[in-house]
Every structure is written in structure tokens, then in C-alpha cells.
């Protein structure tokens, strides 16, 4: 580096050292400001041909930007938005968006690169240090400012008429309330029991999602998995009758996963009692943050959540055996109706999905 004493360019070394031997002892209390390194003129500063070349480069970058902008306009009107084509290295993609993106990038980068190149080659290149000034004003200016405020206060007669002071203050303070009410009001209304209840009722049939057909116990063979919704909230009829919001809410909290386990493998008596001959139905909404827990490993009977890998043991009442979820999945009590289809025996006993404030 340049501040080693034996290099020929060691101009920045302070001249306080007396010799090589006691250099370490001669460290001064304060280093002197070495100042700016000497200004080295750029090629464009000294060579008119280089300056001309830089000018041409900058101008061509701006020209490139102009062409990019014109290209964007042409592409916007000329290319069919649906057109797709194979682009080497990228694959099948929309040519319209590719053209718009590329031309806009050329247009913006042309301006940017041009401006920076201009600044670096042709604009003034001397190094300048700006001094830092104290921010505090002098006493005279400060007193004058205080006097102006004091005169205003007295001129408005606020010192003699406190009624004005308090009513004006009150009006201004209350003025903020409508704003606050809108913000707080926008958080409502309170959810009531909507978080705690689903659409499952006594006698609601279990329907295959998305076909909307009822399920017989013999359909649910061992090792198979059924994704289930309550009757009336899935299938073509429901899609006509209910609006999109209602369908989405139903999908969000009523989804159930149905599997048949070997009754001997089930370790929880409650799970066995609430199921039907080893067929058990559990809420599909993860108790962590509500993703669909639907990765069912038919050999280990583990249910895995794709979002954060919470793992539930289906043979032991869907207790959490791994991951961030804190509660087991709620079980849906099921039975078979007179026509031989699986039906619910009422709603879940506890709220489905993630914990929330009121639930604690």
C-alpha cells in the first residue's frame, strides 16, 4: 500500500517519525489530517479525443434508451398478448411480456447507465470535502425566536382568556376522534361464534370433494384417503346456490380428511368411538396457522402439514408428534344414516384451525 515508508509514493505518511527503529514509540496523540490525495486527472480531462469518445458513449446510451422506449410502444401494439414462443434458455413463455420487459429495461437502463457514465467521465471530477457546521444557532437568534412565540401568545390574548385556550385545545383534540373511530371500526365487527363453529351438523352427510357425492363406509378401503366437505357446501349445486365467499369460508373451516385405519392400530378409545368401524374423520385445517394438513402417509399413518411440517399421528387421536402445531386436530364424530351413507354426529367439539385470542 502507498503509506508504507519504503514505497516511492508514500506521500501521505506524517513526517513525525524520526527513524525506523523507534517508529512505534513516536505515535502522536492526534494524527494530522492527511488531506485529500492528489487529484489525478481522468483521461477525458486531458485528452480531447477521449472526451469525445465518452460523449459518444453517453449519447449512444441515451439513444439506446430512446430506441427501447420506441420498441416498447411498438411491442405494446404490435404483439398479440396471447402469443407464446420458445426462448432459448428460458423455455416456453409469453413473447408479449418478454418484449415489453426487455424494451422497458433497455429504456430505463439506457438513461441510468448514460447518466452514470456521463457523471464519471465528463462531469467535474475534483474531490471536494464539505465542512460540517455547528447546528446550534447563536444566543441572539434563539432569544429572538422565543420572543416571537411569546408575542404571538400574548397578542392572541391567550394569557388573559383561558376559556379560549381550553376550548380551542379541546376542539383540536376531539377532531382526531373520527379518524380513530374509523380505524378501530374497520377492525370489526366481532366474529361472535363464527370461529368456533363450522357447517357440520347432526345428520350432515360427508361428501367427496370436489365431486359432491355421498360416501358409503365400504367405499373407504384401507389405505385410501377421502377429502370431504359437508353436504350442501360442495359440488355443482352448491356452486350455483352459494356465492364465492360462502364457498371459500366453508372450504376454509369445514374441510375434513377421512381414512380407514385397522381398528387394532388405533390407540385412543375416543378416536375409535367417534369413528365408524375404524373409519375416522379429522379436521383438515392445521392447528398451527391453518394450512390444509393433507399429506397422509398410508404406511405410517402420519398426517403432515405442507407449510411447516407439523406432523399428526392418526392412530393416536391426531396428536402432534413433530412441528410447531400445539393442539391435536379436532375429530368429527361420524356414523351411518338409514340409507347407508356416512354422516356427521354434530359439529366439532372444539374450534378448528389455529388458536385465536378469545380461545386462549
Amino acid at each position, binding site marked *: 500500500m502507498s503509506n508504507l515508508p519504503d514505497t516511492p509514493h508514500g506521500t501521505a505518511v506524517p513526517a513525525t517519525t524520526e527513524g525506523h527503529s523507534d517508529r512505534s514509540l513516536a505515535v502522536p496523540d492526534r494524527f494530522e489530517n492527511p488531506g485529500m490525495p492528489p487529484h489525478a486527472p*481522468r*483521461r*477525458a480531462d486531458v485528452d480531447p479525443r477521449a472526451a469525445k469518445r465518452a460523449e459518444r458513449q453517453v449519447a449512444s446510451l441515451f439513444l439506446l434508451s430512446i430506441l427501447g422506449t420506441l420498441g416498447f410502444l411498438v411491442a405494446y401494439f404490435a404483439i398479440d398478448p396471447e402469443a*407464446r414462443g420458445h*426462448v432459448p*434458455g*428460458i*423455455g*416456453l*413463455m*409469453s413473447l408479449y*411480456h*418478454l418484449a415489453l420487459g426487455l424494451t422497458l429495461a433497455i429504456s430505463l437502463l439506457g438513461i441510468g447507465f448514460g447518466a*452514470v457514465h456521463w457523471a*464519471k*467521465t465528463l462531469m467535474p*471530477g475534483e474531490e471536494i470535502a464539505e465542512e460540517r457546521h455547528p447546528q446550534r444557532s447563536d444566543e441572539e437568534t434563539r432569544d429572538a425566536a422565543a420572543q416571537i412565540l411569546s408575542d404571538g401568545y400574548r397578542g392572541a390574548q391567550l394569557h388573559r382568556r383561558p376559556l379560549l385556550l381550553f376550548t380551542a385545545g379541546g376542539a383540536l383534540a376531539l377532531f382526531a376522534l373520527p379518524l380513530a373511530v374509523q380505524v378501530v371500526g374497520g377492525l370489526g365487527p366481532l366474529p361472535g361464534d363464527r370461529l368456533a363453529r363450522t357447517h357440520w351438523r347432526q345428520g350432515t352427510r360427508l361428501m*367427496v*370433494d*370436489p*365431486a359432491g357425492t355421498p*360416501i*358409503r363406509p365400504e*367405499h*373407504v*378401503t384401507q*389405505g*385410501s*384417503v*377421502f*377429502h370431504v366437505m359437508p353436504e350442501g357446501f360442495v359440488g355443482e349445486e352448491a356452486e350455483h346456490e352459494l356465492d364465492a365467499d360462502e364457498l371459500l369460508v366453508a372450504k376454509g373451516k369445514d374441510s375434513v380428511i377421512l*381414512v380407514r385405519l385397522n381398528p387394532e392400530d388405533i390407540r385412543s378409545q375416543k378416536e375409535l368411538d367417534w369413528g365408524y368401524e375404524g373409519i375416522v374423520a379429522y379436521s383438515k385445517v392445521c392447528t398451527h396457522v391453518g394450512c*390444509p394438513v*393433507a*399429506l*397422509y*402417509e*398410508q*404406511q*405410517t399413518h*402420519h398426517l*403432515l402439514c*405442507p407449510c411447516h*411440517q407439523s*406432523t399428526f399421528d392418526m392412530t393416536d387421536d391426531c396428536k402432534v408428534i*413433530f412441528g410447531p402445531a400445539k393442539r391435536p386436530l379436532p375429530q368429527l364424530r361420524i356414523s351411518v344414516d338409514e340409507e347407508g351413507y356416512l354422516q356427521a354426529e354434530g359439529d366439532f367439539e372444539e374450534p378448528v384451525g389455529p388458536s385465536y385470542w378469545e380461545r386462549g
Partner: protein
Amino acid sequence: MTKLPALRRSPIALVVLLLLGLTMTGTAYAAFKPAAPVNPMEQAANASEEDIETGRKLFLANCASCHGTNAQGNGTAGPSLVGVGAAAVDFQVSTGRMPLAEPGVQAPRNARAVNFSEEEIYQMAAFVHSLGPGPDVPEPEYLDASQGDPANGGKLFRTNCAMCHNSSGSGGALTRGKYAPDLMNVTPAHIYEAMQTGPQSMPVFNDDNITPEEKRDVIAFIKDIEEGGSSYGGHSLGSLGPAGDALFVWTFGIALIIGAAVWLGRKAS
């Protein structure tokens, strides 16, 4: 000073190197990706006695060490094959999963490891089919993706398949090293048979759950994605979701920003 070392230290070199590395990895992957065989197989129920007998011999030579001489299973080495059906045999053997190359958490798909002709696989399937009733290989009419409804298939896929196999069918991780495989370039017959038989960790989707017509819809949907589907974005970056995309953007974005910062901060000569 020569030109090359100077170029090597240039900030652009990093970008070029990254680009080269990524391109080469992608090309190498595409070059070595095994292609799956095409086979709509004949129904095993129509097999002759002769086929079943040849199949039994093939079974004894290749499968009996794990599955037992009568396919009754052999403890932890291999499960019983009675009642798994011809569909399971066709799926496991003609995708190269069976015979198992080495013990592991999961038998990987390996089209190069298929050492049997289609006829031999058919004979083994016929033998296993003769042991007990199970799902037969699918009928060709349910494998024709052009007759399926990809929109309905997409619905079914998102409800039943997407959480393991990813919404674009590129697969995903399960527990303890197991995984749901990539569904691209899988033959319609194998997709159908996998739904029908539930191989390994995968659950079964029987005809009462997803009807044969609906299975065809699912196949149509998967084939639609494979052909580019309604994708307008170009390179899929593996369709691994936000993590893969973010890795790409971070690597390239940060490299570009560093390059720009170095250029901006450097004095012109």
C-alpha cells in the same frame, strides 16, 4: 499485465460464472433425465395359463427372495402381494422401482433399471393377478388425456394430490427422507395405476373416491402442465415454490446489485 487476469477480477466475471454454472446444471439435468417407456398394457384378466406360469417362474427368480415363494410376504423384507393386483405390478416394475435395487426409505423411480420386456412384466402381473382379486391394469380409454377435462382434473388435483406432489406436479418432501416424486414425464398408465394402488407412502384413490373418468381428467391436467399448460412465465425454476424462486432472485439480484454498486463507486480512469 495480461488481459485475462484483469478480466477474471472484473465484477462481471462473477455474474458470468454464475450464469454458466446454472445453465450447465440445467442442461446436464435435461440430458440425463430418463425417459419413461410408453405402454398401455393388456388387461391381466385375459392372460393365458401359459402367461401365468411364465410369470410365476419370473416371480420366483426375481421377486421371491423378498416377497416369499408364494408371494405371501416375508416379514419386514417385503409385503404380501396377494390382492395387490396387476396394476401394482405394472406400476412398480415398469417404472423401475421393483425389484428394489437397495434397501432404503423409498424405492426410487428409475426407467433405466427396467430389466424386463413389456411381455415379461405382463406375465408377472398376470401371475400376481391370479393370486387374488386386485386392481387390473387400466383400460386404454381411461388413459387418453385428450378425452379428459383438464379443468376438472385441476380441481381434483388441487384437492387430492397437490399437497404432496406440489400444485404443478413437481413433487415434494415427506417425512424421514421420503418424498412424493415429480409427475412430469410419467406415462398416463403409471399415473392411473399409482392412484389406483397407492404405492409406498401414497394413499389409495379407489374408483369410489375418484372415478375412472375423473382419473382421466387428472391425467389430462398433468399432461397439460407438462406441455406448458397456461404458463406464460418461461423457465419454471423447478416449480419448487417460493424458496426456489427466492434463491434464484437472491443469487442473481444480489450479484447484479453488487456489480452495479462496484461500478458506481469506482472512479473513471
